[in-house]
């Protein structure tokens, strides 16, 4: 139930954020500094999420089969593969690494 509450709050926050752009007077949002922070936040959060999902289990840092997924995804992106192929490459690499004995 607790998770439901945060899901619904996240949904409301997301909608109000989008709506803010349509309702707030243009001058407030036209501030290039605001645009820039939105951009660097996006980069920082996605990099952080990538790192956490690759190297952490709870509060412990680990190197396991997920590193193979990161490398495989990087190669697929380098080769300009579409998003879905990148995700499948990551899953396949992690599954194969585990079959070969990685944790």
């Amino acid at each position, binding site marked *: 139930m607790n*998770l*439901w509450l*945060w*899901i*619904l709050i*996240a*949904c409301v*926050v*997301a*909608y109000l*954020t*989008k*709506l*803010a*752009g*349509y309702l707030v007077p*243009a001058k407030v949002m*036209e501030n*290039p*500094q605001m*645009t*820039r*922070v939105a*951009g*660097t*936040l*996006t*980069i*920082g*959060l*996605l*990099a*952080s999420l*990538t*790192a956490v*999902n690759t*190297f*952490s*289990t*709870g*509060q*412990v*840092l680990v190197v396991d*089969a*997920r590193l193979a*997924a*990161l490398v495989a995804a990087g190669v697929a*992106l380098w080769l*300009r593969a579409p*998003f*879905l192929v*990148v*995700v499948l*490459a*990551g*899953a*396949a*690499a992690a599954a194969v*690494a*585990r079959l070969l004995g990685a944790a």
Partner: protein
Amino acid sequence: MEFSKSPAVRVGLSIAVATGLYGVSFGALSVASGLDLWQTMALSLLLFSGGSQFAFIGVVGGGGSGVAAMSASGLLGIRNAVYGMQMNAMVRPRGWKRFAAAQVTIDESTATATGQSEPLEQRRGFWVAGLGIYVLWNLFTLVGALVGNAIGDPAQWGLDGAAVAAFLGLLWPRLKAREPAAIAVVCAMVTLLAVPFAPAGVPILVAAAVAGVVGWFSHGPAREGLEPDVDPYSSEGK
């Protein structure tokens, strides 16, 4: 120009298919992260912003609290406010349409609209991409959640590796210059340094704070990092 021959409609439809399809990966990863089918569908129907949805389930899957998941998702959605402002000026929705336009304001619908030069084509691109992705993203989220429920142990299928790949895939198009790449490396390092010392989910917020400070005080191009998850024009013949 006729609706069916409009280039914006063609781009909008092709990006709707490309983006909608990866709703499969969101649905499967969401149930693997511990959300149920309805919670997964609530995120796609109501929150509807790919990066924020992946962030929410990424924090929950890593053992983070609901409030940390909501915070990461909310911060990642801030760019949508910038898009909303642009689309308000470009699409000019009136009355109830403004509230519908807000919901379908995401990376891809904004990119499709801004890629067109005529006002009519900009409006068509925005609505066709936005509504098309909304329908397909939800349809394929459902497919992914049902498949994810059916396949059993997610680790055996490498679904945790799929999550890693998904985040790298969302980050990649935003790293076209040296500075965004440097920000990404610094934020990843900060996160890993914080992991042993902070509860799950919090290291992500620490990295967000660092990124926000960098954005506030540095002087690179204003639109840095605001790239669509899927390039609207990559599948278009020249």
